């Protein structure tokens, strides 16, 4: 684990942070340049698209707790689908672990990319109600969405292609446990996690809403 690193944006010179060792990208908060981390310096791979104004109470640098561990929100991917937008916030824990805080209209999930032994069915083979075993535990496909990635901000562990279609399958259980399968790359990514109450996250540094 390498310590947090700060670079000067090659485009505008503003300081850009890489707080997590696993971050591959960081987006300059001033000029929206997408900076790709390399061994010694960064490469400007182009402008990141503007995010859609949304009503998420979260923002970069917000802090919270998950199962007793503190985390900081260091990045986000904004995704648009037919009913609106949702966000996947990239969170960095005190011990260097990273995860995702999913947020859509007041419901929150915390998940971690988790390698699994089981074979993941192809996108075409999925349908709501399908039973899938991940890490030996049963899940049921509840929702299939073809969503559009609007853009990102902060730092992110992989390259974000704006405007490309993300195929996402939500899998649920009869508890708070859930899983997400994401079919953007060759091999689907598996995220395992659980739904969390807003209050339990003890979030600080949130956006303010007039009157609330």
């Amino acid at each position, binding site marked *: 684990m390498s310590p947090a690193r700060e670079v000067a944006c090659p485009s505008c010179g503003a300081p850009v942070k890489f707080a997590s060792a696993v971050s591959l990208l960081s987006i300059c908060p001033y000029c929206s340049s997408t900076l790709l981390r390399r061994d010694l310096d960064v490469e400007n791979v182009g402008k990141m698209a503007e995010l859609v104004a949304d009503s998420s109470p979260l923002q970069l640098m917000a802090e919270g707790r998950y199962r007793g561990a503190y985390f*900081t929100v260091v990045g986000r991917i904004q995704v648009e689908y037919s009913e609106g937008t949702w966000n996947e916030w990239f969170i960095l824990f005190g011990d260097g672990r990273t995860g995702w805080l999913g947020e859509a209209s007041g419901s929150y999930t915390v998940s971690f990319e988790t390698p699994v032994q089981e074979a993941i069915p192809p996108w075409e083979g999925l349908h709501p109600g399908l039973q899938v075993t991940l890490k030996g535990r049963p899940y049921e496909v509840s929702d299939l969405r073809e969503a559009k990635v609007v853009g990102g901000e902060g730092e992110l562990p992989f390259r974000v292609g704006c405007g490309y279609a993300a195929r996402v399958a939500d899998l649920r259980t009869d508890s708070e446990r859930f899983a997400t399968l994401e079919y953007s790359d060759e091999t689907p990514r598996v995220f395992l996690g659980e739904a969390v109450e807003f209050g339990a996250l003890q979030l600080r540094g949130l956006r303010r809403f007039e009157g609330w």
Partner: protein
Amino acid sequence: MTATPQAPVDSRPRKPAAPSAKTLTCSGCGAPLAVRAPGHSLSVACGSCGAVLDAKDPNLQIIASFEKRTKLKPLIPLGTRGRFRGQPFEVIGFLVRQVTIEGETFAWSEYLLFNPFQGFRWLTEYQGHWISAKTASGIPKADPSGGEGAVSYLGATFRHFQMAEAETIYVLGEFPWRVQAGERVVVEDYISPPRILSSEVTPEERTWSIGEHVDGEQVWKAFKLSGSPPPREGVGVAEPSPYAPQARTMRWLFLAFLAAAFVLNLLFGLMAQNRVVYSKQFQYVRGQGSPAVVTEPFELTGRRSNVLVEIATTVTNQWAYFTLALIDEATGQALDFGREVAFYAGVEDGESWTEGSRNDSVYLSSVPSGRYYLLISPETDAAGLGYTLRIRRDVPRTMHFFVALGLLAILPLWFWFRKAHFEYRRWRESDHPWVESGGSDEDDD
């Protein structure tokens, strides 16, 4: 361990301003419409003209329109804020839905509550019974152990209550989905009072919500409403049984009392003397002197206890009546009592019958110790009478146990009846009413 950065100096130039409530003008009738959850709301329904506008469309296109009808007034006005379960929420939407079951329509109200951090909650009201609900984060799974159609969720079993097709008949305010006029969904309710799981099935998807019974008074307090909540009618679908929390204690108490009564009975039985103090055969021939005789004195020992007097006779198709007195030799105190035996037997229509008994026994209550004798004066319609008299001291009485059992059972029986009746009234409204013949498959606790 310092990866948690300090609160940032605020210098985020790209940050869009957080949205706040705004006002629109209805494209249908020009009435002002408030948007209280901008960024979340997809539809805004105008209460004045029944138009539903696309909240995301800059031109506020009308996407649906409801029949102009008598305005239904929400009990909690839109825009009312209250603290609900410790969190502030604002009422932003109101809709009325109805189901038709066997020709009868039942309508209920749903209030949509919003908090920018917590998201949405539902508050539904039917006949004075309130339920607060939110979208479930998981999917309940079938659980046959709870009966037909039951599901389990978050470790609890929910029993199938009702399935009906619900139609939205009135909307007011804003909603995070596209409202359609006359939208029909199949609603299924599963209960584990005070919790309720509801599933709504449209051709596109099935969504689950989890709710909990709330007292109307609580709602009134939370939103600081004037007046009082509508009166409750019947038993609410998820209304917690007032009896359920006591059922376990009740059962435990009953069994404990029963065991205690049994043990008491056993102990006193073991302690009892149960001793024959006198036994003798007598012969009485009518016309030969006075029928009255006295026994030899006998000793009754120990603390006050019962005395069992047994008379065995040989009467057949005759009766005998005994006037008896247990007399304390020293004090002259007596206990007077009368006993009768009668035994009849015969054959009628080829069948033999008997009636009555040749023997009799009686307990005398709480007799003090002392030296006693018994005075016996028989009468009979027979020419003569042979009888055996036996007196026992301090005989264990099982009857006490059964009397206690009866007394101990009254309250629990009444309690279990009330409890069952409560559930009967709840389930009467369901797809699975209890049948007359006690088809109660209800668990005791």
